[in-house]
């Protein structure tokens, strides 16, 4: 019990004193996961909309592949990205393995199918004749796509939440492609794993609390937006 209480005390101390190392780790977590979420939003919403609206052979198989990829194990993604970026790998010459850039790539690979899968469902769940109604209003094809995406904005907010939640809390890929280098690629999750391994439970609990607070704050903000959109 003392262990836990000490952990909370330490966490409180690290938070109120704005510990430099903890602050650095937190900011890097936000930067890496935020950027990865933004990129996956672009890939996921555009790709998801195209898949949802287009008719082509093999569409069902592709949707199944996207849906399956929504649960990609981070360690598998970490392994794949490591191989790709390894010195002798296809993109070895970029020399970005064990850098934040590699972590953004890995997290983008994890988040994109999540955003894409939710986007496909969101667009497909719109009334089938809405597309025709928008065209009947005189819309061009790009205007139609934009209006459909706007109509699906609430589920798309859920896609952002799911995507960000998925990557800010993953550890496997980040540790594999980032290497948990102090002051460079160390993020909240990798630091928590390391501190737990060292038996520094107080620091680990503090980092865990910060991680939870960030997740809560981001989701709370997005929920507020969703609720404001919904009529009461």
């Amino acid at each position, binding site marked *: 019990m003392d262990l836990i209480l000490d952990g909370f005390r330490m966490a409180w101390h690290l938070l109120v004193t704005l510990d430099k190392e903890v602050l650095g780790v937190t900011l890097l977590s936000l930067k890496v996961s935020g950027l990865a979420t933004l990129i996956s939003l672009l890939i996921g919403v555009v790709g998801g909309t195209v898949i949802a609206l287009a008719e082509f052979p093999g569409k069902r198989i592709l949707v199944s592949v996207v849906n399956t990829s929504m649960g990609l194990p981070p360690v598998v993604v970490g392994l794949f990205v490591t191989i790709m970026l390894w010195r002798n790998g296809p993109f070895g010459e970029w020399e970005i393995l064990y850098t934040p850039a590699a972590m953004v790539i890995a997290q983008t690979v994890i988040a994109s199918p999540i955003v894409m899968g939710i986007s496909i469902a969101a667009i497909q769940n719109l009334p089938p004749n809405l597309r025709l109604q928008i065209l009947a*209003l005189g819309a061009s094809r790009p205007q139609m796509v934009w209006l459909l995406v706007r109509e699906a904005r609430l589920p798309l907010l859920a896609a952002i939440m799911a995507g960000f939640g998925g990557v800010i809390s993953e550890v496997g890929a980040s540790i594999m492609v980032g290497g948990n280098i102090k002051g460079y690629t160390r993020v909240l999750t990798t630091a928590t794993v390391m501190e737990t391994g060292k038996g520094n439970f107080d620091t680990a609990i503090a980092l865990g609390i910060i991680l939870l607070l960030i997740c809560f704050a981001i989701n709370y903000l997005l929920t507020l937006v969703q609720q404001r959109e919904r009529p009461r």
Partner: protein
Amino acid sequence: MSAARELLQARGLVVRRGGAEVLTIPEFCLHERESVALIGPNGAGKSTMLLALASLLKPSAGEISFLGSPVIASSGDTSYRRRIAMVFQEPLLFDATVFDNVASGLKIRGVPGDEIRRRVGETLERFRIDHLAGRSARRLSGGEVQRTSLARAFATKPEVVLLDEPFTALDPPTRHGLMLDLAEVMRESGCAAVISTHDQMEALRLADRMIVMQGGRVVQSGTTSEVTANPVNEFAASFVGMENVFSGVVVSAGEGVLVLDVAGQHLEVVGSGTPGERVVLCAHPEHVVVTTVDPHHRTSARNVFPGKVSRVLQFGAVNKLYLDCGFPLVASVTSHALQDLGVAAGSRVFASFKATSVHIFRKG
């Protein structure tokens, strides 16, 4: 009407789905300021025809032209679609306020903000929903939703408006009120309209011409009064409210009047034919007069039959009396008249109708 320009034309229009022809329209024409009702049951091809006319569906064969220029069914070509408007049966409003919904067609066309505010304001007033401008479309009643949907279509000042069963989901009082307002807006705006419906009253109230459709084909086409008075077959008769349809045989013919045998009873109708010929007779229930005393000496109607009321059904302010006069007959009676008559199921009555009230056609 003959001087009016031809706005929309279709020739040899065919739509196939899964190898089967779901729509075959050899010829269709819509003039300026004219409104045409497509009437028929579900699956008659009314919605398919509207989608084709809106260039939202590529026909398998045939050509549609607008003011003489061919219309190309392509999502990339907006020039034609920006001169027309279509309202779907289901409410397809955007998740936005009523104002933004009504403004959406204008925004799509890049109309300046001031002009949008002015035109939306006007249209909201015409459809009596100006007080709802700021309300979310998700908080509207069924009638308000359909009013918003219609206002959105009319805000763009279309030259042709295509309405796909716009009142189907509404309760009778809401439907009636909206129909009156729509008729007024259509008259004021002067835009041409094609309205699909399965309700004869809607067609009569809103349209100049009527096209009766069945199985993707035109059964009959003409002015609303022509089609209503002279349906070409039993199907068309049933869709223009002629509930009294029965078979008969011509007994004698002379001076434009036929005597027909219907289930052993003799009926006199205006028409021509030859003795022994089999015909179908139909009459509107509104033309059948019901009395409790024999009207033989007080009426000019040539057909008077004693009968018994089988049942009475109420349809709003109108009651339908189902009579057994040796052959089944339906009469329409207002609630007030029914009260005066004092009849109920089982009552003995007399049914009369004029020889000119019966329409006949050959069995085909």
